[in-house]
């Protein structure tokens, strides 16, 4: 931000992140979790909260929670427990949510985040727990004027993982960086698809200010309704400034929940009716406490993949990639794996990186793991294409056309090159005849060259390339031209 009234204040931010887990079935029943099905088609008595139903814990959800907890260096509880959180809202069929309270799945972890200025911030993780999502209200018209409201319970009971950070974040930029790093971890673990727009990753923030040098916390404000990284950063910037102005005007900060209004670029206080006060938590009597087998947890720990930050550092040290390349290539596990697979077959890392960044990511979004894994240009085929460039079979320019054809047809580079006759003309005798013709037909640049304008040779090279349909080996053409021109 340009004007920074916050300069005398230290910003204190903690995030609460809800991630929808990539399980096939819901947290406490067997209904599917797929997004976008017609309303109320993915429901059963359990996720509709009908009388007499009971929850059964989804083992896979626990596994994903434990994997995340381990990746975030948390202490995984040997025994945890679900609890009921009560408030009345019609999108919640039981009028309580099964969550975890006093005995969460894991506590006390951390995540290291690389900041834009090159420094590293270790952000503490206070707790990580599992819970169920609620349904969705659909109002006929706007909330204020609706004559009726409908409920879609498809999302009701979808597994959520809530992670609460410690208030270790010191600026809105850091908050965005933390959230990005956190999201990358979830994606690497195949725990969550990380889609903030569709709501599979949601973030609330607690923000307070305190005089620089103070250890005490100021009054915190909770910010909700931030649906993108940009929203998180903008909302926090606005809120920091709002609080700083208020404090400097001698006002007191009110502890409250505020909603980010992205259209107007402001946070506004929720009406007090909009948030509940006493959730009356108590242990869920329908579920026995969850005892996690330490051997199982150890198995999960051993099965953890290399995490994004470690991989980024390794791509720099092992392959000598610039940090920028490593950053781009590690945005998802699939992309990093693509890179490494291609380098195994064509061990020129920077070349492979250039091709991935400029060509592959031009046609495929780097954060779409499915598309990457299904790419018609497999890492092996990309390597094959680069080998044809290296051994002079095709030129770099032709290679880009071949790449596009590979995307369209799913064929390998050699098949396309041979069928289309794209092989470079490296036959000196043939090229020699073409060079002779070009020299004979273009007296002006030849004259210019002889007068010492060596740049005129470039025009002649271009003409030879044109005559060969771009397939001439530029090195050979250059050599032949130089020889022939110097003999004139």
């Amino acid at each position: 931000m340009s004007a920074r009234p916050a300069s005398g204040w230290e910003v204190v931010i903690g995030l609460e992140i809800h991630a929808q887990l990539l399980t096939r079935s819901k947290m406490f029943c067997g209904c599917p979790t797929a997004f976008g099905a017609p309303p109320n088609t993915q429901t059963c008595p359990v996720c509709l909260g009908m009388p007499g139903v009971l929850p059964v814990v989804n083992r896979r959800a626990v596994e994903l929670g434990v994997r995340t907890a381990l990746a975030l260096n948390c202490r995984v509880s040997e025994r945890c427990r679900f609890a009921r959180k009560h408030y009345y809202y019609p999108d919640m069929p039981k009028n309580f949510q099964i969550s975890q309270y006093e005995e969460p799945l894991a506590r006390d972890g951390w995540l290291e985040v690389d900041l834009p200025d090159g420094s590293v911030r270790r952000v503490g993780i206070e707790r990580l727990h599992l819970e169920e999502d609620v349904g969705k209200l659909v109002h006929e018209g706007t909330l204020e004027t609706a004559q009726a409201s409908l409920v879609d319970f498809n999302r009701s009971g979808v597994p959520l993982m809530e992670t609460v950070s410690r208030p270790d974040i010191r600026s809105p930029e850091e908050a965005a960086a933390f959230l990005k790093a956190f999201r990358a971890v979830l994606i690497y673990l195949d725990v969550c698809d990380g889609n903030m727009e569709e709501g599979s990753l949601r973030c609330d923030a607690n923000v307070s200010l305190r005089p620089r040098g103070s250890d005490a916390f100021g009054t915190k404000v909770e910010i909700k309704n931030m649906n993108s990284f940009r929203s998180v950063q903008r909302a926090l910037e606005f809120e920091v400034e709002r609080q700083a102005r208020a404090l400097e005007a001698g006002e007191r900060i009110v502890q409250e929940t505020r909603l980010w209004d992205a259209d107007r670029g402001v946070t506004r206080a929720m009406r007090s009716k909009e948030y509940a006060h006493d959730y009356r938590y108590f242990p869920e009597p329908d579920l026995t406490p969850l005892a996690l087998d330490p051997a199982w947890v150890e198995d999960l720990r051993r099965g953890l993949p290399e995490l994004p930050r470690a991989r980024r550092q390794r791509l720099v040290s092992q392959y000598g990639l610039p940090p920028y390349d490593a950053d781009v290539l590690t945005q998802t596990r699939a992309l990093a794996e693509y890179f490494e697979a291609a380098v195994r077959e064509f061990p020129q890392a920077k070349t492979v990186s250039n091709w991935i960044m400029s060509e592959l990511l031009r046609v495929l979004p780097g954060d779409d793991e499915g598309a990457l894994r299904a790419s018609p240009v497999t890492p092996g085929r990309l390597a094959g294409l680069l080998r044809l460039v290296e051994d002079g079979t095709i030129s770099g320019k032709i290679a880009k056309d071949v790449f596009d054809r590979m995307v369209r047809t799913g064929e390998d580079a050699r098949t396309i090159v041979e069928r289309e006759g794209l092989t470079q003309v490296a036959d000196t005798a043939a090229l020699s005849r073409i060079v002779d013709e070009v020299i004979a037909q273009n007296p002006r640049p030849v004259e210019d060259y002889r007068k010492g304008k060596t740049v005129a040779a470039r025009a002649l090279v271009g003409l030879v390339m044109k005559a060969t349909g771009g397939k001439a080996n530029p090195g050979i053409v250059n050599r032949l031209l130089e020889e022939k021109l110097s003999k004139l």
Partner: protein
Amino acid sequence: MKTDATRLTVHELTAAYARGAVTPTEAAEAYLERIAKLDGRVGAYLTVTRDHALAAARAADERYRRGTPRSPLDGVPIALKDVLSTRGVPTTCGSRILERYVPPFDATAMARLADAGAVLLGKTNMDEFAMGSSTEHSAFRPTHNPWDPGRVPGGSSGGSAAAVAAGLAAAALGTDTGGSIRQPAAFCGVVGLKPTYGRVSRYGLVAFASSLDQIGPLARDVRDAALLLGAIAGRDPLDATSVDEPVPDYTAALGRDVRGLRLGVPREYFAEGIDPDVERAVRRAIAALAELGAAVEEISLPTTEYGVAVYYILAPAEASSNLARYDGVKYGLRVPGARDLIEMSGRTRAAGFGAEVKRRIMLGTYVLSAGYYEAYYGRAQKVRTLVRRDFERAFARVDLVVAPTTPNVPFAHGEKQDPLSMYLNDAYTIPVNLAGLPAISVPCGFSPAGLPIGLQLIGRPFDEPTVLRAAHAYEQATGWVARRPELA
């Protein structure tokens, strides 16, 4: 003359089917006729499932004709307390708020009985949401004690107990949260068994207090109770609190005598306030067991006096949560005319719940509130642990605890207006639920006015075989079960 099926026990009835003395259809018709003739005076049923019953009975006829009955319950006409979900059959819980609710699924207990070939005659009356000890809190009708229509049948499974006693069902299922099977069994002169918590799946049992509720049989004799328990017991993947403990043949231990069994008589169960007729009958029963060879000793369960207080914190706490889902949004009653959702739920709950249910919701909401949770709920949980330990200590010395089921004989309709005096009626049954133990009430005599009295036998967790064995030995030696009320 043909056998009168309605006078037979379950095991006598299926023996008659096997002999061809009577068919399941004849039995079902006889029961339906008797219900049509007598239930206006008893009030045991809320719904009679005539068509279902006849269809199921016809299918059973066929199996007996082929000599391939499915189980010892095949073709047996039974009744279910209206708190157990039945697919396509109204399940009201005795409440206006569920008056028109028809579940789309069967409770596991119902499904298992149906698999065994049992024939559902209908759904029985109960205190609203199983909250009460007299069935007077049913929103629909009172149930009359078959031994004296001016008196209550007990509750909350009063309809099931009265139906079995009056010959309106061969056997029935009830539920027991603080005595709701055993107390009406005692009041109606039938056998009632509350199994160990976790022995029978609660899936489809509309929850009152989840950590205490358990489904069990009401039957004319101990063998029938054993047969029903065998059919419904066992681990259910839909109930995480159901225990994976093998289900023995509960009839196998019947017929063994009680020699060598050690019986503990808790002095706290004969405290002041016990009806002298009840004490006399129970002491005589204990003497009879001693004569049969059991070793009897006095024991102490010092926390007995706290049972009622603990129960009236924990059960309402869980109830306030379990009953939050009845908000007019999804099923059951919705009071029209509200301007918004909050008003809709408020009006629906105000009109749909009776006074006792509202009292317990308020109690439960209060004890879970911030600032009171530890003092009430937290402390009650600790005392619950002490109650459990009392029994653990007792069971280190004895095999069974024997005691009265209730401190009194059936009281008159309207006699107990003060909720507290009603609550104290359950002082001898509640500790068993708090400790999660199996217990049976078996008839042990009559007051001079001809009102039934029950003997309670309490066992170790999952030791239903010993409970049934002693109850059966006593029953066979004394013959009280042969007495039936005369209604015709």
